[in-house]
């Protein structure tokens, strides 16, 4: 009834009416405004901080420093290593030092501008140094994380190859550029508890961090997700929530914060710039024999999600291909550049750029069609991945290629400068090699209304609607019978973050489990066979307490061996193939993306319209990654210097879905949020090569860079 149907989004009505309460829109009687004073230096000691100028501004009530923190002055999703407010040293431009609280925004910002900081500058580390011999930020060295994957013997595999291709690929910092900057409101409720409502991707995690910061128990804190204007990984780390909690705790008045766009660019974590040495070996018939990948990345001064990126790129080193001999190293190094963290794909989009370019060059060297080499080596049921995992089900990669094959074979260059490229990917759903459970609650409430309580955050990706569809299908009730209650730590249990394309799969399964509990109860009570109304069932049993059914799902995966990376990092994988047509103007280096055919194995499509939306959005972000997006530390402060695709940059998009059902997923579903983006930049780059015959080893391939490549090709001829 409800699975595979284009249900309208449950949040769309409020959004088209303009009544949705985004974090930016939250207001309260008597609320104050807080803003952050941030470091203007990449690396410095704080010799003196003079706040008298701020206090001289009428309406400034309080300037908060690290000394005002009652609990721990550190946070971090995976390591508690990042200060909320700098103590004696700052390590990147944009690092928070103080919070200024004033009667209104103008006053608070004026106060912040009048703070005087005497910096004792220290030489900054601006290039990641893998040798360990250069300048270091920390006494413990520059190496933040190091992960490896070893399978077979790459030297032997290379020796047995008829062709070996080796190149170095480079990518740069990318900003999430969600349109709603970080924002939220905090206040003390009637019960004396601290309430934070913010633009976020994870409420339960934020509550833990606030509890540590203020040294008060989690039960004394409530975190609510406001309508959130985009996330893409950038609202996973604590943004304004800690400052709000601190301000509310100290002043006991409602406090609001909203980052300016410049502040968002400055403070938000970035996609990791990676340098990828990639060597691929293959036999004459195109069979891959060995892949050796050596990756170093700039992680900035704090860990954020670096560990997750590091492990994930090592694990995904080969791309969606079966390779008998694999050697993959990934090292992330500390610098005084912006903190890099989670961004849609956790490093895999950068890696796809490398492995897909490589594969095209191997195919070219062997005189093979790019699609044939992919079909020949593609992972399928029974294949063994780089970590030694046997794919026993839901591995529809080759089917995604088959979907676009007719268009690929029929491709025709219509004019000079037109070209076609393929990009493929696989992506493990959920966190890598660690437990990442989700809980859900389904309740039979007042008047027989079914209430779905979930802690999963809707960040625009459509989890609210997908989870509702799963509940409706499982229960076999009408749309009007079910209420959704989402994103409140008071009414939900931890569902984990909206990240790693995990909510449909993991929260979806937890919702299904909880709904099955209620279903069994309703069955017993005569709902399905005797036609007893939900309201009657509720009234007959309500005196026995709340009718609450719990669901829980933790995907079956295992930890990975430290030395070899062998193990089962994920219970399931998504697969995708994109074919992109471009037109390059040789004289200027301008590249237009004309059309994309995108095929995705989603396991089971819960809502095809929503999936198409994710894919079109992913294509846009991939076009940006390939051709225009580049954050330059110390320079980028606005959209004037950071281009994201506009409607004029978008190609036509044709979407094809493969449904190779995942036995552990809800109705067979996996995830699509990040897969939508991952292969896109790779396919653009390959199309550019096809169009003008130059190889692109560094992103973004913007106009000047491409023009330079075309010109140097002409002069070397």
């Amino acid at each position, binding site marked *: 009834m409800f699975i595979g149907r*284009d249900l*309208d*989004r449950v*949040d*769309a*009505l*409020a*959004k*088209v*009416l*303009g*009544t*949705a*309460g*985004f974090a*930016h*829109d939250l207001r309260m009687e008597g609320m104050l405004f807080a803003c952050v004073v941030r470091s203007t230096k990449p690396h410095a000691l704080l010799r003196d901080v003079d706040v008298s100028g701020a206090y001289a501004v009428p309406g400034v009530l309080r300037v908060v420093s690290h000394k005002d923190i009652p609990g721990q002055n550190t946070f971090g999703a995976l390591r508690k290593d990042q200060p909320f407010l700098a103590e004696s040293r700052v390590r990147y431009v944009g690092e928070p030092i103080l919070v200024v609280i004033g009667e209104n925004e103008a006053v608070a910002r004026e106060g912040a501008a009048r703070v005087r900081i005497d910096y004792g500058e220290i030489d900054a580390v601006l290039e990641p140094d893998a040798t360990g011999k250069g300048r270091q930020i920390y006494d413990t060295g520059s190496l933040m994380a190091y992960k490896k994957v070893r399978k077979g013997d790459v030297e032997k595999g290379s020796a047995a190859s008829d062709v070996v291709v080796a190149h170095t690929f480079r990518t740069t910092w990318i900003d*999430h*550029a*969600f*349109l*709603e*900057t970080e924002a939220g409101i905090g206040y003390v409720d009637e019960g004396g508890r601290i309430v934070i409502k913010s633009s976020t991707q994870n409420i339960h995690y934020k509550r833990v961090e606030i509890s540590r910061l203020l040294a008060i128990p989690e039960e004394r804190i409530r975190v609510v997700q406001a*309508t*959130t*204007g*985009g*996330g*893409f990984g950038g609202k996973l780390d604590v943004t304004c929530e800690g400052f709000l909690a601190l301000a509310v705790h100290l002043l006991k008045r409602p406090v609001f914060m*909203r980052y*300016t*766009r410049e502040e968002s660019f400055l403070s938000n974590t970035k996609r990791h710039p990676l340098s990828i040495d990639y060597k691929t070996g293959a036999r004459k018939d195109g069979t891959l024999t060995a892949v050796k990948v050596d990756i170093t990345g700039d992680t900035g001064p704090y860990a954020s999600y670096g560990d997750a990126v590091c492990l994930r790129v090592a694990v995904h080193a080969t791309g969606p291909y079966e390779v008998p001999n694999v050697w993959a190293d990934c090292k992330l190094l500390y610098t005084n550049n912006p903190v890099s963290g989670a961004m849609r794909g956790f490093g895999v989009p950068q890696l796809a750029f490398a492995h897909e370019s490589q594969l095209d060059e191997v195919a070219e060297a062997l005189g093979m069609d790019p699609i044939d080499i992919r079909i020949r080596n593609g992972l399928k049921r029974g294949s063994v991945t780089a970590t030694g995992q046997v794919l026993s089900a839901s591995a529809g990669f080759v089917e995604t290629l088959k979907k676009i094959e007719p268009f690929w074979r029929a491709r025709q260059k219509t004019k000079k400068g037109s070209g076609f490229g393929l990009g493929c990917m696989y992506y493990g759903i959920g966190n890598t090699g660690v437990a990442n459970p989700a809980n859900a609650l389904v309740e039979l409430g007042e008047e027989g209304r079914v209430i779905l309580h979930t802690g999963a955050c809707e*960040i*625009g*990706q*459509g989890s609210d609607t997908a989870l509702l569809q799963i509940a409706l299908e499982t229960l076999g009730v009408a749309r009007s019978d079910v209420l959704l209650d989402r994103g409140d730590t008071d009414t939900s249990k931890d569902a984990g973050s909206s990240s790693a394309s995990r909510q449909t799969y993991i929260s979806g399964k937890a919702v299904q489990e909880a709904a099955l509990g209620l279903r069994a109860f309703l069955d017993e009570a005569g709902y399905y066979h005797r036609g007893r109304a939900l309201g009657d069932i509720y009234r007959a049993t309500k005196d026995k307490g709340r009718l609450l059914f719990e669901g829980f799902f933790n995907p079956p995966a295992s930890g990975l061996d430290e030395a070899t990376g062998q193990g089962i990092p994920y219970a399931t994988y998504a697969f995708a193939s994109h074919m992109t047509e471009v037109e390059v103007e040789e004289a200027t280096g301008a590249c237009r993306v004309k059309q994309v055919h995108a095929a995705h194995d989603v396991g089971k499509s819960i809502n095809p*319209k*929503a999936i*198409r*939306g994710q894919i*079109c*959005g*992913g*294509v*846009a*972000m991939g076009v940006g990654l390939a051709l225009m997006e580049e954050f330059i530390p110390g320079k980028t402060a*606005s*959209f*004037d210097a950071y281009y*994201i*695709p*506009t*409607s*004029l940059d*978008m190609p*036509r*998009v044709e979407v094809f879905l493969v449904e190779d059902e995942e036995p552990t997923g809800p109705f067979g579903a996996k995830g699509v949020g990040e897969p939508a983006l991952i292969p896109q930049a790779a396919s653009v780059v390959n199309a550019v090569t096809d169009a003008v015959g130059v190889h692109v080893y560094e992103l973004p391939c913007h106009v000047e860079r491409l023009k330079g490549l075309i010109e140097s090709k002409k002069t070397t001829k």
Partner: protein
Amino acid sequence: MKRVGFTLNGKTTTCDVEENELLLHTLRERLSIASVKEGCSIGECGTCTVLIDNEPCYACLTLTAKVEGRDVLTVEYLAHADLLHPLQESFISHGAVQCGFCTPAMLLVGYSLLLKHRQPTDEQIREAMSGNLCRCTGYVQIIEAIKDAAPVFIHSGS
């Protein structure tokens, strides 16, 4: 302070504002029109778009004093009582809304375009919305929604 009079969503409105006050501030903070968003504050994202005499304008770059005597529309104008405007219906049914932060502005741009072109081409739609960023949708379903609403577009002016 300065008194400014204009028509807001069909109603005569007067408002006391600062000399250099921006329309974005007036609408959001004085008149509680929260549908007009502030994505960048400097004319680069389009989320603050309103229609002034039916033409899209960035409210973050418009002085409130400049709208004296003019006709200002925000997305609140589109729906009447319980009835959605066909463009709003179309945005919902085409999946043109994801996070929704760009949505009110996109609807206004679409509305303004359809007033001028009853059957716009894809290119005209893309051109019309090129000053409005969306980070979520890739614009595809928004373009489809506007195009599909064109035949049933009703100028629901008062």
